[in-house]
């Protein structure tokens, strides 16, 4: 066997094939992150977050919107998810420079700008005197719509067709759920969106094995 410590000792074809396979697996483990695990994780967060918000508005007559406790809890849940995601991506991309580094930064910027814009819009329609029911449409569907559009556009960079499909599904979910009413919109977004993430994770995992 080879020592793998940098000597130029000869090796036969079988050893070379083994080294190539090991090196590729090791490099992928070190320099890439698992899309299926990431998608599945966000699917679970998505269902929990929207489920929590739906439970807090269920039975409200008239509709008042999510309670402060639910909104705070969901914010913490999403921040934990974002922190874990950032740590995983940072570990995989440490030391990697060039085009993909720039693309990744623009991708995250587009998500941040999109979410900042949608929450500003929500505050603006609240300020303009819109009813709680109208604000619910933006609050529940807006973030899903932004995520969907960014995922579709991000396919140009990451070339993951499962994520492209998920993006289209999220846009359809955000638009379709807006007709469900201020209470049901949280449940529809949570179920349809969460299942979309889990399906994309399964498709991505299957393609990774193929």
């Amino acid at each position, binding site marked *: 066997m080879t020592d793998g410590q940098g000597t*130029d000792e000869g090796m036969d074809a079988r050893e070379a094939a083994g080294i190539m396979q090991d090196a*590729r697996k090791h490099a992928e483990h070190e320099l890439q992150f698992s899309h299926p695990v990431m998608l599945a994780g966000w699917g679970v967060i998505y269902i929990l977050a929207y489920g929590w918000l739906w439970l807090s508005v269920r039975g409200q007559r008239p509709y008042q919107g999510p309670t402060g406790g639910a909104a705070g809890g969901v914010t913490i849940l999403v921040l934990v998810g974002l922190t874990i995601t950032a740590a995983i991506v940072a570990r995989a991309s440490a030391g*990697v420079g060039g085009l*993909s580094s720039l693309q990744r930064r623009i991708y995250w910027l587009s998500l941040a700008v999109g979410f900042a814009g949608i929450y500003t819009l929500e505050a603006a329609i609240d300020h303009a005197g819109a009813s709680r029911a109208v604000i619910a449409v933006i609050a529940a569907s807006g973030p899903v719509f932004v995520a969907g559009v960014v995922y579709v556009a991000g396919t140009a960079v990451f070339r993951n067709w499962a994520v492209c499909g998920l993006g289209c599904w999220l846009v359809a979910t955000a638009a379709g759920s807006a007709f469900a009413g201020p209470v049901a919109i949280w449940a529809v977004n949570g179920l349809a969106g969460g299942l979309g993430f889990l399906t994309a994770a399964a498709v991505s995992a299957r393609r990774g094995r193929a």
Partner: protein
Amino acid sequence: MTEEELDSVIHAPARLRIVVTLATLGEGDDLSFTRLQDVIGLTPGNLITHLRKLEEAGYVTTVKSGSGVTARTGVSLTREGRAALDRYTMVLRQLLDSASPD
């Protein structure tokens, strides 16, 4: 077909690991010298020696940027390096196929 037909620049354990590792990056990407060293598990001296051989063959490029604590040496596979790895893989596959019993 014999093992002599394999590209001798790539056909060394450490250099094969380096080239395969760099090939997992997207085109236009590079890897810092320290991270490459960490992933491959070579001493800096060994890594420099092997990178020099690969660079002489035109298979990798190293670009230094920054200075002081922000100094960084980026290592990337060139188009020729990627093509050489493809050829190496093809020859290796043919060798393995011809060695396997029918």
